[in-house]
């Protein structure tokens, strides 16, 4: 059996798509309560740096590093989410964007901990770690007909796929439950939601920290996929990129940003053959979206038609 068609480069692109899907879901989770947070690049960097530092310097096993990275990002989300309650709309967006920049500047300047602008290298890579662990038991990828680099890329892809599918399932189920109804109610009319007995403070902070936790999770997985991170990975370009996933894909349903992240990560790769012009096409696509479909590609009526049901959301 031969898997020559399994191209590590394609698998790597697919892996980055999955990380971006997680980030797309993370902005949606907060947006589900009507809060536009552009701080997810910052929370992503907290997750990435936490796991990178714990695994490289303190010998913490990778799964524990990823978990702690996500939890620390989620806890920072609570700390940012509470003062964020006072801000709305574009003011919240600006403040959270500022938060992300502050985090990045801290990472650049706290050189003893973070390696400064150079960043952290030689972070354990998921695929290589698993290959090494299996190697000790006498396993070789060749028995599966795979080259080592194919096996490594495939392992990373499969782990990310599982993490992404589980996250999507988690938040899809949440959105059609009592908690999800409370989130939507707050987005549509906060005063009426409070009058309906919903503790809006609790649910807004909850949504904010869930988004932060998921960003941190994506960041930690990112660190263990590329095995090298630096502050340049988490600039405001990243924050805006995450926002564009939701704007392009649609922000009224969880699957909107999922689609946006997949499509917008894939397009520049597919258009590589026209090199410099590909970002022009990317830009034209966004402008056309603004004009013809401002709510994004995916919205509940479209999902309703696709699944043949009247109400796609909730139910």
């Amino acid at each position: 059996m031969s898997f020559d068609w399994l191209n590590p480069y394609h698998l790597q692109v697919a892996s980055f798509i999955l990380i971006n899907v997680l980030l797309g879901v993370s902005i949606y989770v907060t947006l589900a309560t009507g809060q536009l947070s552009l701080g997810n690049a910052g929370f992503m960097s907290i997750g990435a740096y936490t796991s990178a530092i714990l695994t490289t310097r303190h010998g913490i096993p990778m799964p524990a590093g990823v978990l702690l990275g996500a939890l620390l990002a989620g806890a920072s989300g609570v700390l940012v989410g509470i003062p964020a309650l006072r801000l709305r709309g574009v003011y919240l967006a600006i403040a959270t964007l500022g938060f992300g920049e502050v985090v990045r500047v801290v990472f650049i300047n706290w050189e003893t901990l973070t390696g400064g602008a150079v960043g952290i290298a030689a972070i354990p890579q998921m695929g290589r770690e698993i290959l090494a662990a299996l190697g000790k038991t006498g396993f070789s990828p060749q028995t599966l007909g795979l080259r080592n680099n194919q096996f490594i890329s495939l392992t990373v892809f499969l782990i990310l796929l599982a993490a992404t599918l589980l996250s999507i399932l988690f938040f899809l189920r949440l959105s059609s439950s009592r908690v999800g109804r409370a989130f939507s109610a707050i987005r549509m009319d906060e005063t009426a939601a409070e009058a309906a007995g919903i503790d809006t403070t609790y649910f807004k902070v909850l949504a904010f920290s869930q988004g932060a936790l998921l960003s941190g999770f994506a960041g930690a997985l990112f660190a263990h996929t590329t095995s090298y991170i630096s502050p340049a990975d988490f600039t405001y370009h990243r924050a805006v990129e995450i926002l564009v996933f939701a704007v392009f894909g649609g922000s009224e349903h969880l699957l909107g940003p999922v689609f946006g992240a997949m499509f917008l990560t894939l397009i520049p790769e597919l258009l590589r053959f026209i090199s410099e012009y590909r970002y022009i096409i990317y830009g034209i696509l966004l402008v056309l979206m603004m004009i013809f479909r401002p709510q994004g590609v995916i919205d509940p009526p479209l999902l309703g038609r696709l699944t043949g049901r009247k109400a796609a959301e909730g139910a």
Partner: protein
Amino acid sequence: MALLQVVNVSKSFGGLAAVSEVSFTVDEGEVLGLIGPNGAGKTTLFNLITSMFPPTGGRIFFRGEKIEGLKPHSITRMGISRTFQNIRLFAQMTARENVMVGRHARSRAGIWGGVLRTGSQRAEEARIREKTGELLALMGLAGHEEFPAGKLPYGHQRRLEIARALAAEPGLLLLDEPAAGMNESETREIHQLILSIRGLGVTVLLIEHDMSLVMKVCDRLVVLNFGEKIAEGTPEEIRGNPEVVEAYLGREEDDGDA
């Protein structure tokens, strides 16, 4: 014992006294009308009772417990629900989902219940749906369950908002002008609905400008003018009260309703 006691409650916005030193009680099981000309402070009083903002002075007790200063969602949990003068539905949700949200205070499933779909979560969802169906039927909205709330006709929206408020199983329901903008037959329906709400054992505090409705449906009336209580009594007593007539109509005789 009085269900709700409002004791010397005042509220000023800047220098303007919207409500000053108002006291009244609502007894268990009655329909109490809160009437007065525009700007008399009726809706402000609703906002004070539901703690949308704190009073400048005075105290409010519900079932003997002090409730001023609590968060609005805690007030709902304690058993006071309300509707809004300018309907506030969750417009993009269906009628059913609106009422299901109203059930929030009487259900408890959290994140893990919702994600793992535990047995108790599914049983609770089933109860929420059952209760929601009953309330929609009671409010005459059967058949409109899957309609987006924002696209329902105006009269239906009013009744949906009442259904959502009832979903929290209130002991006291505050209705802010439920018959506003309705024609005569719709107003008669609202009359019947208020009677059926009372039949559920829910006490009603009603703000309404439609005097024929108020006189028919209310057991007692409290009259406000310029933030002060000017009269209190049965509809017959209020009808004959010269101060009330003057507040509404000025000194000239007229047959206007509001």
